[in-house]
């Protein structure tokens, strides 16, 4: 069975608040990710919500390590 891509979900509840990470969804494409994020993370009336394919995220710190010099 094919593994679906993971999308990270970000949202803000007020215009003057920063975007925050609210969760993630598995979806076959961007449009399904949008529908899933909107319907799954509906605990607030978000003024902005977006999804980012996890594969597009460039890590700065290595997973599970403190961001000390030399990582």
């Amino acid at each position, binding site marked *: 069975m094919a593994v*679906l891509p993971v999308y990270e979900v970000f949202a803000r509840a007020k215009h003057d608040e920063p975007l925050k990470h609210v969760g993630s*969804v*598995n*979806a*076959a*494409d*961007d*449009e*399904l*990710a*949008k*529908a*899933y994020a*909107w*319907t*799954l993370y*509906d605990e607030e009336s978000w003024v902005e919500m977006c999804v980012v394919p996890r594969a597009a995220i460039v890590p700065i710190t290595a997973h599970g390590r403190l961001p000390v010099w030399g990582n």
Partner: protein
Amino acid sequence: MSNAVVREFESLEGMPTATAEGLHNLLWALADTKLLLGYHYGEWTFGTPELEAAVASCSLSQSELGHARLLHALLKKHWGDDAETVAERREPAEFANIAFLDQPVDGWPAFVAMNAVVDLAATRVLATLQGSAFKPLRMSVDKMLDEERHHAHHGRGWFRTLGRRGGEDAEQLRVAAGNALATVAVWLGPPDDPGDRALVAAGIRNRPALEVLAALADDLRQLALEAGVGVPAPVPAVFNGWNPRTRRAAGSTGPADDILFHLRGDANALFKVGE
């Protein structure tokens, strides 16, 4: 585009009879379609291919039922129609929903066709009411269209997913989408429908039904191309005995008894408050 000054209506007062009747029929058609969409999406809260789709389907059901309630409120305020009473008393053939929703949605490809074609058809009709000369409609329409964006994302996303998978899934989707479009064509009505023409002339809707059908067929062609699904050639709609109130041709029998039994809550009528 015409530059004619369009009169705005706060109510039905002063609205020509044919226009008021056309609007009455159109609002019932949208309300019934949304009621049935809400029922079928609700049924598909379980049995979806993945958990996210189950949550989405439940959410789509809630918004369709919410839209039906909004339309019912307009029908009550301006025509005195009590939706609950009307729903209880109507015969199946009197329901004005898109006929694709008359029967159980018996598989995921059919669900996707309902979402991507039938739901979108109702949304495209709603979009013709944006900026309507009938002011009480305007705010409701914008709210509904805003929510319908998520329905469209879900429908298109799954259409592409099934199409790209190919094989039996894609073939079932192709057949279901063709059936859905055929029922939508009848529901939209014949090109010479006086009610449709009266609504466009009065500025209550901004496009006639024929243009809605053409736009919808284009949507579907484009989506099918992206998904790699062949779309059957459109079958000319047969409007023999077409009734503007029910938007059905002769012989169309309406929602199945089992669906209406659950929609009306017959089994639980005993528990109704105030009865």
